[in-house]
């Protein structure tokens, strides 16, 4: 799914060179759920930026879903990003004066779908996160957890191959964090590849693979012990509204 | 005051600073030249014409009926007009003529002394001398000052149709050109014998001051059909009442006249420079708009950069800067920009002045004008940025610790 070979990302200013990523190699297979940990300033964000095609790299190779990324034009990169990747940010990053529907709809606008197709996808994504009935609400009318779920719906609307999540539960209380993690796990069960940056060691333990980035280099921890039964809720595909606790 | 640091911080935002500097420069350039136009026009309007502008009333009129083709009829009406007008309280003297001072061209003739017929080759203004048809009261109505001889009198009015050489009165500048310092009395020109010289009156403001050539002959009654203007010399304080009655007085004598206008000679001077005044006014209007737009830019510029610098200002406050220090810091940044703008503005003002001079006549800028314009720029700019600057100085130090 995602192959990085000897990626280096160097930030240069007048006097100093910073190796944000050095000799970084990683292979992610389809369907994996990876947690990325590491101290602040270690290069986690840079890794996510490069993986998400938001930033370029100075040397090495990167293949995403079989497509070699070097040498692609901005248009091609954007297309790739739009079709293959879904982003989930720590502070949700919803547009405050758009409705939920319009927020989820945003990435689809750049795909060239017609109105009917977009509507279908938005409704499907909102179903999946259990917020179909709130389509006309504004973000300010929802709780933090619900907003993050909307953000997840937005990431899903384009049916991406891979989800990149940057501390998705960082701004949520433990109950809502739990629900969001459950959603992510269930998506992963259905086959979505997920790479998640987190500071929470419990979250890191719950996934199949851990990666630690220190000083721009990777330390790759392979598969943990299988998850305990009682640490998971329902393995169903979606969380129904009635079970979620609204703030 | 760390000038180097200020300049560095301005260099970080070259684009917006550059735009503002350009705007300031253009504003200054326009300010200076508008002021020049306004001052030039004011100077033109304060021209000393040589007569008492405020107390001379003119009525310009034209008969509408064909009856006036009978010149005797015309004359009788005109004579009665003059009589009735002179009876109005406050009127010192009345006259009638075909031409007024402060005019463009008019009836012209060439004038040369018979002993020196080639003189008009050396002085082109001798080819176009104002030829003014007058009668004996014109001097007192206009308030001409005699410097030699006498003005026209009844005896100078020859029989109608006569070919005899006439008597004429000339202006001082014409006399100087024709005869230098010697007396002009009794000299014979192609237009007649000189019996008097009056002190110069500005006949055409666009001619040089020493070329206000004019000739007066007592023929207005003979050619009454060009007697367009009644000239009334009015006692100070009576202008308003005479002005309100003049037209009716004339129409009461005979109603088939078109009263074009009733105006003082002061009005006439203003009218002559109407277009100059109009252009100066337009430029001042534009200045006002430009200062407004530049002030908006200045405000937006400060607002924008202050918003970005909020955290750093908080840090400064946390480290001990007082509110006044911050205020001065913000204002000084702005003043540096204004200074740069004004320096460039001097070049723009000079350049624009040269460009405008290709199309209109205007004076060169002087230092005083620059100083005034620069102060206007600084004052309006400071006023524009006062509000954001003041708000910034109130940024609390605690901002420095915020991470979001």
């Amino acid at each position, binding site marked *: 799914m995602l192959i990085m070979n000897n990626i280096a990302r160097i930030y240069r200013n007048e006097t100093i060179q910073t190796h944000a990523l050095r000799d970084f190699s990683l292979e992610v297979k389809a369907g994996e759920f990876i947690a990325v940990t590491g101290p602040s300033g270690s290069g986690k*964000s840079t890794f996510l*930026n490069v993986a*998400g095609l*938001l*930033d370029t790299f100075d040397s090495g190779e990167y293949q995403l879903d079989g497509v070699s990324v070097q040498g692609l034009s*901005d*248009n091609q*990169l*954007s*297309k790739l*990003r*739009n079709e293959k990747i879904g982003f989930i*940010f720590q502070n949700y*990053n919803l*547009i405050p*004066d758009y409705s939920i529907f319009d927020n989820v709809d*945003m*990435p689809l*606008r*750049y795909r*060239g779908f017609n109105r009917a197709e977009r509507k279908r996808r938005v409704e499907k994504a909102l179903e999946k996160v259990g917020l179909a009935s709130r389509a006309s609400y504004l973000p300010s009318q929802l709780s933090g957890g619900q907003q993050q779920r909307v953000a997840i719906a*937005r990431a899903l609307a384009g049916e991406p191959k891979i989800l*990149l999540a*940057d501390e998705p539960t960082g701004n949520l209380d433990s109950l809502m964090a739990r629900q969001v993690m459950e959603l992510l796990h269930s998506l992963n069960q259905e086959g979505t590849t997920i790479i998640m940056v987190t500071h929470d060691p419990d979250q890191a333990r719950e996934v199949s693979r851990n990666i630690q980035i220190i000083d721009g280099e990777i330390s790759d921890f392979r598969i943990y012990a299988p998850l305990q039964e009682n640490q998971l809720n329902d393995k169903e595909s979606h969380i129904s509204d009635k079970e979620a606790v609204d703030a | 005051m760390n000038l180097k640091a200020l300049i560095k911080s301005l260099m970080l935002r070259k*684009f*917006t600073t550059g*735009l*503002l500097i*350009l*705007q300031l420069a*253009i*504003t200054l*350039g*326009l300010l200076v*030249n508008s002021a020049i136009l306004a001052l030039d026009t004011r100077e033109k309007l304060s021209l000393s014409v040589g007569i008492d502008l405020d107390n001379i009333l003119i009525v310009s009129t034209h*008969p509408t*009926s*064909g009856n006036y*083709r009978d010149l005797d009829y015309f004359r009788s009406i005109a004579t009665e007009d003059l009589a009735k007008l002179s009876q109005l309280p406050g009127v010192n003297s009345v006259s009638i003529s075909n031409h007024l001072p402060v005019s463009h061209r008019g009836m012209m003739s060439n004038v040369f002394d018979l002993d020196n017929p080639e003189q008009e080759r050396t002085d082109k203004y001798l*080819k176009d001398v104002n030829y003014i048809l007058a009668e004996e009261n014109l001097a007192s109505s206009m308030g001409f000052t005699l410097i030699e001889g006498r003005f026209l009198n009844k005896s100078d009015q020859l029989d109608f149709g006569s070919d005899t050489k006439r008597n004429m009165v000339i202006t001082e500048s014409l006399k100087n050109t024709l005869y230098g310092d010697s007396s002009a009395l009794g000299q014979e020109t192609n237009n007649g014998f000189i019996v008097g010289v009056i002190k110069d009156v500005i006949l055409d403001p666009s001619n040089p001051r020493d070329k206000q050539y004019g000739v007066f002959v007592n023929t207005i009654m003979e050619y009454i059909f060009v007697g367009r203007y009644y000239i009334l010399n009015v006692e100070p304080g009576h202008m308003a009442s005479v002005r309100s009655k003049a037209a009716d007085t004339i129409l009461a004598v005979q109603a*088939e006249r*078109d009263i074009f206008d009733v105006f003082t000679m002061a009005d006439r001077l203003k009218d002559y420079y109407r*277009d100059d005044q*109009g*252009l100066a006014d*337009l*430029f001042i209007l*534009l200045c006002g*708009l*430009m200062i407004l*737009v*530049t002030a*908006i*830019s200045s405000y*937006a510029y400060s607002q*924008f950069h202050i918003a*970005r610098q909020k955290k750093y200002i908080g840090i400064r406050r946390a480290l001990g800067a007082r509110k006044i220090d911050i205020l001065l810091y913000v204002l000084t940044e702005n003043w540096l920009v204004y200074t740069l703008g004004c320096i460039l503005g001097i070049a723009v003002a000079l350049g*624009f002045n040269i460009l*405008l001079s290709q*199309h209109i006549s205007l004076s060169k800028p002087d230092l005083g004008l620059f100083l005034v314009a620069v102060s206007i720029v600084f004052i309006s700019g400071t006023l524009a940025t006062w509000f954001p600057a003041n708000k910034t100085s109130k940024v609390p130090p605690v901002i420095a610790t915020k991470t979001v």
Partner: protein
Amino acid sequence: MLNYNLKLALISFKRAPSLYFLVILTLSIGVGLLCANLALVSSMASDPIPEKSEKLFHISMNTWPNDQPNEEPFHILRYRDAMKITESDIPKHSAVFYESGVYARDAESTNLKRFDSKVRATTPGFFALTNAPIAYGSAFSKSSGMEVVIGHELNNKIFAGENSVGKVLELDGELLMIVGVLKPWHLRPLFYHATEGRAFNLTDDIFVPLETAIDLGWSIHARSSSTVSYKGVKFTRDRNVFYLQAWAELENQNKVTAFQQYLDNYSQSLKDAGEHPLDIRNELSNVNDWLLENDIVDQKVLAFTLASVLFLCVCIFNASSLLLSRFHAAKFEVGLRRAIGASNRDMLLQGMTESILLGLFAGIASLLLAWLFLKLSSEFLPDLANLAVLEPKLLLVGILLSLFTAISSALYPLYRANRYTISAELK
């Protein structure tokens, strides 16, 4: 996508209404002012009779009888010179005229009110030469006769706009019959009388045959010059009184050459008779050349136009600053859209759509302002009152100029917005 971008642009405007209002306001004032000036300049510099301006020629000659001429050549002619011109059959049409003025009244009316009217005393060729538009009746066909053609405005004033052909006017005590009435006739500039600062006057109220006016003694109301004294226009036929202007319609270059030869031959004959002391200098100037020679474009308006160009630059810089701060404030959303897959091109198109929409709004406002400024301009420069009209082509110029200024204001801000680094953090 266009609809979406338009929707996004409107949302953007709603988010910062005062800023966008300022941008639209300053751009529309700048463009409006420039447009008003351009309208004036265009009126002054335009070709008033494009269908035949290449074929109509003003005739200046150098027949001044002594060696102290006013100008060489002189734009006004003596009666004998002018008659020589009308005698020639080389021009398709010719017109010889002078300007006068009378007071006019409906002869049958009991009302004694008379209207001050501008008169053109002319040979009949004038009407065909100038393509004068006839509404009722026809032009007079001879140079004499007690007939007149009147203009649209005078017809409105005296006869309330009806067909007044056949009615009689009392002009200065004489009775003349109306044989033709013109349609509204606007010549900008008034090419047939471009001298003496009259290029922006309206067309005349009354057209009368030349000989009739001379015989009735209707005085000359424009430049006249003579070497002898004369008691009135009645006496000018056989004297050296220069006051008539002459135009000829010459259909092609051959005719022009032939007519030039004709005039030069005439001047030569005068020279041979010892009556032409100056050099032979007969000049034929077509409409546009003649207007150029007479320098009719008001320099004051040009000066103000230059100033308004500078003002427009200031407005563009101002808009650019404002837009930059706006785009910076919108950085977050730009980053977000880029993250979810919008390319640089998509964001550029979004920005351009906003600019174009701004430009259109500013364009409409600027046209209203241009119209307003033109109305006001006659307060400041009254001589130009007849020119202050907003022609259709200026409307197009206004819109294009607004679009251009809106887009150029946005160029650098868009470029900067493009270069913001996008990050997964999106703070």
